[in-house]
């Protein structure tokens, strides 16, 4: 499939030098996307965490052991591995902005897309969502609750973009060039550390425009060629090195 380019390119920039792994982004994501709480959430192989914070370290012993936390939303890849494999077009990258869509009423739950994604950003809804009595009254209006048996993932809270466009129409603002703060994802707004920034990386008026061009910016597994729309930033070399796989010889070269 040929790669599609759009005028708007929604991108996320995550500063790993600020993230303390507190979990506020994950909680907000669970809430905003109506993910039902699971009694045993310690079985990470069955939880639904569209935003998941990984912990990584430099492999040294105390006291040189450094750690970093890496929040991982869906990468909304420019060349998604998941989209071409879906047999029923339940996932696609065909909308302005380049968010990879996942349509629950279309998904048949074959999980091929999960197998395709090296970031583990896709989750299968193993069981029907059950909310404690009454809690369904607090469901977010922005995401439908999914039945079991379908694959789901981070959508960059895209319904918020729809709402921002409503506001733009009302206020007579160009929907293709809205102020950055009109459309922000739940994790971005929640983060108490200002770790996450979100905007149109093609729009010089948005902060992310400059950030993705920083020499400290990198993306996960760039060499596999998925062309993610999520960038990470770190001044620590070991952190940047952990963003991809390198042979020993390449590591030496990088350090030189």
């Amino acid at each position: 499939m040929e790669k599609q380019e759009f005028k708007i390119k929604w991108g996320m920039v995550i500063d790993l030098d600020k993230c303390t792994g507190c979990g506020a982004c994950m909680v907000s994501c669970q809430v905003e996307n109506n993910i039902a709480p699971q009694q045993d959430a310690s079985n990470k192989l069955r939880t639904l965490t569209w935003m998941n914070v990984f912990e990584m370290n430099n492999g040294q012993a105390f006291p040189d052991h450094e750690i970093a936390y890496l929040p991982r939303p869906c990468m909304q890849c420019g060349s998604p591995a998941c989209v071409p494999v879906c047999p029923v077009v339940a996932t696609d990258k065909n909308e302005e902005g380049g968010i990879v869509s996942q349509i629950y009423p279309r998904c048949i739950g074959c999980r091929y897309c999960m197998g395709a994604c090296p970031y583990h950003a896709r989750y299968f809804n193993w069981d029907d969502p059950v909310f404690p009595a009454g809690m369904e009254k607090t469901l977010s209006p922005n995401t439908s609750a999914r039945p079991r048996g379908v694959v789901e993932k981070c959508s960059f809270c895209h319904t918020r973009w729809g709402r921002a466009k409503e506001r733009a129409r009302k206020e007579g603002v160009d929907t293709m060039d809205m102020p950055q703060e009109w459309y922000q994802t739940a994790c971005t707004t929640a983060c108490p550390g200002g770790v996450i920034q979100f905007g149109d990386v093609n729009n010089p008026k948005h902060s992310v425009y400059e950030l993705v061009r920083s020499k400290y910016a990198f993306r996960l597994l760039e060499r596999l060629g998925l062309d993610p729309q999520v960038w990470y930033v770190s001044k620590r070399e070991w952190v940047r090195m952990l963003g991809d796989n390198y042979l020993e010889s390449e590591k030496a070269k990088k350090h030189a």
Partner: protein
Amino acid sequence: MGLDRRAFVQLAVGGVVGTLFTPIPWKLADDAAIWSQNWPWIAKVTKGEIAFKNAISKFCPSGCAVSVRTVEGAPTLVQGSKDNPLSQGGVCPACAAGAQLLYSPARVKGPMKKTQAGFEPITWDEALTTLSAKLSAVKGKDGKVAMVSGDQTGTTSEVFSAFVAALGSQDFYLMPSEGQVAGKAWSIMGGTGKVGFDLKNADFVLLVGADAFESWGPMVRNKKTFGSKRPVGQPNQATYVYAGPVRNRTAAVCDQYVPVPADSLTAFALGLAAQLVQAGKSIDTADFADFKAMLGNFSADKVEKLSGVKAAVLADLAKKLASAKAPLVIAGSPFGQGEGAATFIAGAAVNLLLGQVNKPGGMKVFADFAPVVKGAATAKKLTEASFADYLSKVEKGKASPEVLLVYEANPAYGLPQAEAMSKVMEKIPFVVSFSTFLDETAQKAQLILPNPHPLERLDDLATPYGYSRAAYLVSLPVIKPVADAKPTPDLILGLAAKLGLDLGFSTYQDVLKAKTEAVGASWGDVSKGKLFASDVTKDVSGLNLATAVLAKAAIPNRDPAYPLALAPLAQLNVGTSALATAPQALVTIRDTELLGNDMFVQVCAETAKANGLSQGAKVKLTSSQGECVARVNVSETVMPGTVAAPLGFGRTAWDKFTRGKGDNLSKVLALSPEPGTNVSVWSDTRVKIAKI
């Protein structure tokens, strides 16, 4: 001839063929698929008008200034309030799950009394009649009623302390907190008013123990400030150094981590002071000469012996502090409680030596807001009163309360030596819990009078400890209580009237309006979420450096029977003593922290080897006061000789999401009097670890 077999088959075939030319199979297949897309048992989302309302969420100790998104009036999302300097749009992981906690399965649905068979729902009338009868029986008798509150920042403390005082008792307490110890330490130094820290203007921040991005002070404001001082891809505008026993979440993002055992934090700070004094810095206090002499015991070499911090590292840090434009030292507990006064005093002394008091980027001192409720305890008095000490007195029979009132606090679970404390509470004949959730303390109470959830009530927030300015904010209810709960301060004011006690107000709203006026703020502003903040600082002349206290308290006392230092971890996503993990926050807990029903303690490979432990081994942690069980996670983030362990697990009440998961570390925390101040300390708890 009737219908023979062949004709029947033909008929059936005709029927089948015919059916294929009707909508039946196709429409059914399609409709069945649509049905699977809208299964009736899958929850439907709320529809309607979306609005945002400012409020205060008190699930974290500092309180978050939040903006609540409502749909047709129902809260659906708690975010940070953008224009509020305390949150700047960010929110802590505990408060982020706040809207959903409205319907927590652990919520107390209505007033209940304990009977032989367990709790029994009762009417508010019955509940209040019972309570007022109990209270009128002890009214006027000295020391027969006591109250403890977990609200560190609200004017509720004024109402409650005034009420208790009017009943003839002095026993109103706040749950232990960082701010309380700081206040006490500041008093020992002869200071008045409240201390804050100007992170925003500091260019070099040394965190001595203080876990500023998780459990110390207003975490959201601290992190937002940190973030803003370190613009992405550009040079850092401020350097952050963390000193403490664990490379915790705060240390993970600091520029430098200095391993310091928890019991040596004071010595470490004094070591820095000694270096600065050596470099010619001084403080204008009467006892500076004594102080200087005492620092002779904290030379770099001696500090290295006490704390293990290399002399060169100490000297280098002192140099960096001295050469920074706006250095700031924040000394406190690595887990938000249990530190002695000496650590704060030593930290303050370094700030004084650096000339960083009431200067931009330094330590700030400002006046407390005056109480508005007649007979309310002063802020100073609240810092003096320790609830843990009070319960010790009850245990020894030196105090014998008939009634204990508990507001938004969970002492039966969260106090150090939790098991013993919980037993002492059983000695009090009548315990009343004003709690939103069925926590461990409520479960022990004779009467539970549910308090509304923070989004359901009128509340206020006055200068959370650590914030650099005197600040005030009011929050109006976002939604009517979804359980049969009544706001406790109003209830107390009503009881006061019933008991013939005059507190000067009949509703809590009147109290807050008076408070707003006293603060000098506008009700219209603060109640809409606009933070009132004053930059007026307070003169700090006449301080002393509590040299005698420091000399005694800075020397660690290590019982060889307990070879390991315990480093508790307070993490807001796991919860606080007053809040078990929110259902939506469960996924944030790593499987190296909790797996199934087992929690993990963290030790480095060296400690693991020395104690014969391997990854996943089941162990028992034992202190002089209690024990708890866990599994071992080998993590190189922890100092050798230290075992890090999470607070917040081991719930025995609450709901299926938290009950029975892990063990309660508070049981292990051991109280000891701080030499020189007699402040009860438990940040230096020592333990032994054994495989089971």
